[in-house]
């Protein structure tokens, strides 16, 4: 196993523990915004989508002629992930602004 891979696994495991610590402190009244907000955070896949869609050199022979499959898949992934990110953060913001004290 390479050192890089080991570090990735370390980070993964430690981040899960951080997640548990932070999220157990969220009160039940905010569980819906927590879910939509964390959902927006999982839209971080957009980073991978951007890299794929910005890739130019690749052409693969297909039934429809030579296509840059990586970029096409990346494009659809950007649409999906952006819906997730923009929609998730905006709806969470809308909800959180409704919570008021007496």
């Amino acid at each position: 196993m390479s050192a890089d891979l080991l570090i990735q696994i370390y980070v993964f495991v430690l981040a899960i523990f951080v997640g548990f610590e932070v999220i157990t402190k969220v009160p039940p009244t905010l569980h819906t915004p927590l879910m939509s907000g964390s959902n927006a955070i999982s839209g971080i896949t957009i980073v991978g989508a951007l890299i794929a869609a910005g890739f130019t050199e690749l052409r693969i022979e297909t039934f429809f002629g030579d296509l840059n499959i990586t970029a096409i898949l990346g494009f659809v992934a950007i649409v999906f992930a952006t819906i997730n990110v923009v929609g998730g953060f905006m709806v969470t913001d809308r909800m959180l602004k409704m919570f008021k004290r007496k």
Partner: protein
Amino acid sequence: MEMIQEIIIPMAYLLSAVLFIIGLKQLSHPKTAPRGNQMAAVGMLIAIVATLVYREVIDYTLIIAGIIIGGAIGAYVAKKVEMTAVPQMVAIFNGFGGGASVLVAAAEFYRLATGVNAIPGFTMSAIGLSIIIGGITFTGSIVAFAKLQGIMRGAPILFKGQQVINSLLLITTFALLVASVMTTGDMANYVLGIIIVALVLGYMFVIPIGGADMPVVISLLNSFSGIAAAATGFVLANYALIISGSLVGASGIILTNIMCKGMNRTVWNVLFAGFGGDDHAPGKGAQVTAKPVKSYEAEDTVVIFENARQVVIVPGYGMAVAQAQHTVHELEKILEAKGVKVKYAIHPVAGRMPGHMNVLLAEANVPYDNLYDLDQINPEFEETEVALVIGANDVVNPAARHDTASPIYGMPILNVDRAGTVFVLKRSMNPGFAGIDNELFYNDNTIMLFGDAKDTVSKLVAELK
């Protein structure tokens, strides 16, 4: 240039991860929560900008188009969605997250497959895993969305041999994953196979789950979308994805756990037992009873409300369906003006997702410090004159406390039966999702108010004015 690529971009990713963590931490209080969410959004913006200057990102045409399309759809949905429909919106957003992971993993596969070097076994496994988890999340979330939106019936879809078929599908996906790692030939067909089987599996996995078990399913799919993002992080060796994905994965697991505890069931039982539905078909424990219940009209209740010192309102999914939250808030204000103390008791699994009732009541301007969870409110029922149950059923069934034969035995409930008088607002005598009769309705201190929840509460408001 090297410095940007080698140091500044990774540092920017670290900064976004830190902002996500601080943002989630701020969610620990309603006062700081809006700021927390904004910080997380800034973190995301930083990650996106950092990626745009990454050396392998060359062509911006598709990127700009994708962001405009996705951003417009996301913003439109976020602005328009009704608060009652938030569960299905979160479900479908989860699905998009999972779908994005599948697409990114597949894109990376095609990029690597056309390269000179063989794809390392570890990368190939990570590609397979992000496709499997992301694919299950994608179609599973679509089914959850369809059930919540009423496009599909909420009742479990069950057939003979279902669990055997699902197990075989699961084994097939992993067999394909192992084969794709081991093969020395063309991997593309295996990858395609994994995608197809994972998509079928996600569909199969959610159809047997009843509408009322959706809080568990949505939490679990939320967790999956995070784990899928983390797996994609391993594919791309990108720490931003690994950290953020793990945070979301952990969050979903915690919520799943809370929801299961709220039902006193294990996650396996929820996923595989095909329990109940929302079609009100009598289930195993149901008996058609002709026991008498007391039923009043709204105007007969005024004296009881006016003489109460404390009223505890127990909302359930029925309140959401009837869109009664605003009227309920009006009732609360009138009672308070008459010197009656009003509190809300929120069961963890009330509604269709964790915290669903809290958001609906917040929308209706009910202050959050008026909402009490199970442990806080249960000791108070004995000193409460009136408990008002609006569209909740199984979460107030006393059988859960003592009847070992009841399917919901052991589930933590709100002890409304210990209040002086219990008013139950209900459409009819149909049993709840568990398909079991509720002995609360036959108690001496229980009075049924039949009809649409919103109409009944409006009548109460009019009478009390």
